[in-house]
């Protein structure tokens, strides 16, 4: 029977990789603002926390940050599945219940964030509401780390499935994800420190709290990142031979640079450097995935059948979307014209 094949990429692989890496970086920035900032607000020592205007301002931004995190998370997941669908779906199925449970957990976290943002008695409710949200995010981060680490080990995925096909398995190779996960969450708290300090730049106590978390978070995330690199074993050597090692180096330098600018209270520069640093880390991460999967899967062998007409539609809509969001923000903040 002559039927069309669906086993193809509808754009060159490099383009899909670029889109994946860029959108994932944006997602991580939004996630860091949300998760990291939330952790800093809850764990930091801020006197009369729930009466502090800077803290309350940050809390009010959290539901919007959540919307941004979700919205920006859709695109990288789409591009990831386009290339690594076999690995991603298989790992998702092995941990099926945990994976699916992400949805109600995120809904719960979202409503508690809104609960905190809308409450008229923050001193009474915010701590509890935000703690629930934070715990939900810890769950989501843990499942993401375990599932995507499992996706990079197809052999383990098959063994784990054979042992339990009911979707109740958490990646049993703890060494492959624990430091990766710790690096992710401490990294998020580091960037959260930057954002809290930025939002609270006019309040010395809040700025100092942000600075503390930024500094110590940077140190801790670096340690976990290093340990994670060593857990790569033979792949570490492979990584050294790819451009990713340069990206990693630049990423570390940029992180240190952002810390420097944060200390100088030049927040825009600190933010730009953090963003670029995250981009470098995601690029490095992309190479680590390729190395893990090298024995089983080589994305460059996928047939390419381009769909330029619809890609052009996407591109036009993407540019228009950016323009519209910019235009709407302009309208929103055009207070001088407001009633």
């Amino acid at each position, binding site marked *: *029977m*002559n*039927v*069309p*094949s*669906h086993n193809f990429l*509808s*754009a060159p692989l490099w383009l899909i990789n670029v*889109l994946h890496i860029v959108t994932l970086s944006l997602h991580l920035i939004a996630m860091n603002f949300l998760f990291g900032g939330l952790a800093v607000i809850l764990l930091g020592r801020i006197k009369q926390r729930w009466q502090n205007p800077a803290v309350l301002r940050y809390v009010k931004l959290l*539901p*919007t940050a959540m*919307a941004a995190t*979700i*919205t920006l998370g*859709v695109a990288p997941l*789409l*591009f990831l*599945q*386009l290339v690594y*669908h*076999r690995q*991603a*779906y*298989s790992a*998702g*199925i*092995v941990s*099926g*219940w945990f*994976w*699916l449970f992400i*949805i109600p957990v995120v809904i719960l976290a*979202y*409503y508690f964030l*809104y609960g905190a943002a809308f409450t008229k008695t923050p001193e009474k409710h915010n701590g509890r509401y935000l703690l629930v949200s934070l715990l939900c995010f810890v769950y989501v981060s843990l499942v993401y780390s375990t599932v995507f680490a499992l996706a990079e080990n197809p052999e383990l*995925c*098959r063994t784990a*499935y*054979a042992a339990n*096909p*009911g*979707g109740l398995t958490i990646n049993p190779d703890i060494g492959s994800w624990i430091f990766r996960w710790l690096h992710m969450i401490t990294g998020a708290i580091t960037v959260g420190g930057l954002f809290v300090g930025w939002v609270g730049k006019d309040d010395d106590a809040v700025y100092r709290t942000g600075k503390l978390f930024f500094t110590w978070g940077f140190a801790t995330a670096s340690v976990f990142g290093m340990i994670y690199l060593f857990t790569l074993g033979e792949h570490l050597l492979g990584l050294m031979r790819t451009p990713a090692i340069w990206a990693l180096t630049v990423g570390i330098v940029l992180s240190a640079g952002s810390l420097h600018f944060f200390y100088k209270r030049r927040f825009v520069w600190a933010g730009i450097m953090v963003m670029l640093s995250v981009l470098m880390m995601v690029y490095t991460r992309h190479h680590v995935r390729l190395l893990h999967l090298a024995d089983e899967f080589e994305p460059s062998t996928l047939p390419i059948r381009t*769909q330029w*007409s*619809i890609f052009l*539609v*996407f591109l036009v*809509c*993407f540019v228009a*979307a950016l323009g*519209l*969001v910019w235009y*709407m*923000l302009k*309208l*929103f903040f*055009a*207070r001088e014209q*407001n*009633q």
Partner: protein
Amino acid sequence: MNYPFWDIDIGYGWLMGGIAIVHVFISHFAIGGGLYLVLAESSARKLNDSFRLEFLQKLSKFFVLVSVVFGALTGVGIWFIIGLINPAATEVLIHNFVWGWATEWTFFVVEISAAILYFYGWKTMSARNHLIIGWIYFIAAWLSLVVINGIITYMLTPGEWLQTGDFWDGFLNPTYWPSVWFRTGICIMLAGLYALLVASFFKTDHSKTSLVRYNAVWALVGLAIMFPTFRWYFSNIPGTIRETAAEAMPVVTARISEGWWLGGAIAIMIILFGLALPRFFGRPVAVVVMILGLLWFGEFEWMREAIRKPYVVHGYMYGSGIEVAELESLRSDGLLPRLAYRTGDNGADLFRRACRSCHTMTGYNALKPRFDGTDQEFIAAMIRGVGVMRGNMPLYPGTETESQLIAVHIYNQVDKRPLGEIYGLTGAELGRKVYDIRCGSCHEVGGFNDKSSSMVGLGDDEYNDLLDMANDISEEMPAFTAPDEERAALIEYLKTLSQGGSR
């Protein structure tokens, strides 16, 4: 077959349906509600109607909490669940339509941003700017429907794509346009019904009656779009799909005519209580009308999914994730060598791949009651002949040896006592049960592929001969392997069938 099979006790249909129904209700409401908000705000501002502006502000808070949070996340939930229950089909959709999805994502970004700014901007923005953002929200939300509609309709009516594999052939398929407008009608109707529900909680006065009338017009406009476009949609479904569905799934097609009645009932109630007697538009009426509206929409979605059976992409891939083009090679070479994920229990693995997408043993679409009191040989023959059963089942995708392995797996879980003992039946009643189990899946008395009229008036010997040569009549028909007691009971039952096939 490149993926593991998520083996859970809950039926996939329930899991998918549970998430999808909630999502489609909210997502359509989010589009219609956006148009409602911006038009109602525009009119309220012109009239300087503070009552209505306050109502709209409250509505938009609820709107954000429902659509931005629940709507968006259940949408992501659908994506999660399809990747779990049918990764092969998800792979087909993503590979063919990734730029469609990516385009929809750009609208999603605008929609979510606009929803948040619209909500937070009530008190801080100028009326003009606020309305501009409201319009941007609605247009982006509707455009996301326009895009996703192409992917949804492709699954039932892939049209020319089956020959060309071209994006636009699949996207702008035969049901694309009618579905866009039908769904737009649904969006407007739901917005009207929801606004009516909210208005029904208000104290009855002049403001309320005027609001009820306004909202009623919305619901009626939605209905006015839905009636003709539903007909258009249905007529654009290829005749072969409609005829097969009507023959093999009469319950599904019966729901279509039910839809017309539901639509009519909604229209009458809205004209009566919304336009003529708005003072009496209380909560009970609003709730009933809302339920009827959701029921009609729900039935449409269910019908659309059901008549696609046994495919997930019509004519291309079965619901089990097996491609139609692979079938021949699978039937000669077998499924087992192609399974990338195996557990060591071949019968269970084959059962999962061939049957579990639609059946569980004891829960959703349960197989145990269908095979209790039968035997391994019968089960294996039924598996091989599934393609001719009522309910639009896919063709069996494995070898004969593999059907035996599946049969053993199923047989190990069924009740092995005779049917008479299991159900406490004797005589013609037992015969009816034997018929239902051994014959009824392919020959429903008074229904699908009914052959009872040809068996009326035969003698015992002729019935016995018929049962003895069952396997020779057609390749798919299993041999009659039941014990003598059940054979006698079946003959007794067959004798009770009157001319015309009724019981």
